């Protein structure tokens, strides 16, 4: 997964050492990326999101799918689904 090579700081600044691109993410994005990097499944992340941010699993899943689509668009995530 391309995510593994990313340098991520606690403020949500992300640097890709292979392409030189940098990105910023908010707290939620940072939360998701850290879980993805750890190889957590979509279901695990949905549960964690729902607990941490006090939203329904349905909302959490929708946001997660959305965010992962963004990551794919930037070439940071490969494949269809984790």
């Amino acid at each position, binding site marked *: 997964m391309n995510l593994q090579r990313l*340098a991520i700081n606690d403020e949500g600044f992300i*640097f890709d*050492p*292979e*392409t*030189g*691109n*940098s990105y910023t993410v908010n707290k939620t994005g940072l939360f998701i990326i850290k879980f993805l990097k750890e190889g957590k499944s979509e279901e695990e992340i949905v549960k964690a999101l729902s607990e941490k941010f006090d939203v329904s699993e349905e909302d959490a899943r929708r946001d997660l799918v959305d965010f992962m689509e963004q990551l794919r668009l930037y*070439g940071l995530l490969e494949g269809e689904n984790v």
Partner: protein
Amino acid sequence: MYRVAVSGINAVDNPGPGVGIAKGLKEGSLEVSVYGLAYDAMEPGIYMKWLFEKSFIMPYPSAGEEAFIERLLYIKSNYGLDAVIPALDAELPLFIKSSSLLESYGVKTFLPTEEQFKLRGKDHLPKIAEKIGVKVPETRIVTSYEELNKALEELGFPVMVKGIFYEAYKAFNISQATSYFNSIVSKWGYPVIVQQVISGEEMNLVGVGDGEGGHLGFLAIKKLWITSLGKTWTAVTVRNDKLFSLAESFVSNFKWRGAFELECMVSGSDVYLIEINPRFPAWVYFAAGVGVNLPERLLKAALGLDPERDWNYPAGKLYVRFTDDLVTDISQFQQVVTTGES
């Protein structure tokens, strides 16, 4: 103390590499005195005495080999000169041709051969691609409207229209392509290069080939901010294995000697070679700044010393170019104008 002359000290909006080279040399381990070679009394490097102890106005390379060599030998006999690092495209053929002669007078260079230098022509890219197994954009070399139209039909739009050495435009239709073709022909002559547009990340790599298939270090960057003239003002170091293997293949296949810059497009897992420059780029100080002092390594190679070869620089180092100013006396300018040196 080594005395080394560096050209390209025109630190203007289209900056030459000379100031960056001099900064690298000054920060290195060798004790050096750097001389600036200029073509105009207004070149800012002349006035940067902390980098260039002395500067000399050179005859244009078009004035011929004799006048050029004579000027270098004048510097040698009056002030001492151990090596020259030329940094401008227009001078390179002359320096390459005269390198043995200069060497016989004790002035060292570390330059590509005439054959290697010719590879920089964009019309050679497809041949290079074949030899080193790298992708290049689909390229057509055209010398007439008929050929231009045929190339446009084959490649479609948008398309790049380029001079063989300088200038490049993106054309979105036939009338734009024809107008760029005419403008390039009137400035640079034939042939004109018509090239497929590759989308992806633009990355550049600077290196020094050792002439035996190895190299003295690479540095790869992604440009973050360029000026309207396309000059790098902000950049970040990257470590991209595909780019490194392309550069290694280039150096080992052509046994490249001296400085070079590769301009590439990285598109997913593909790396396309867009251009080869047979000299240091203007941002070469970036390499010295992250511990890969390519200007000094090249100087060491020229002097027959053993240069370092490590290039384990970190990704994520930032390069910021800025403009600066200084105040001096008109007498400095007068001296350059009247005596040709300062």
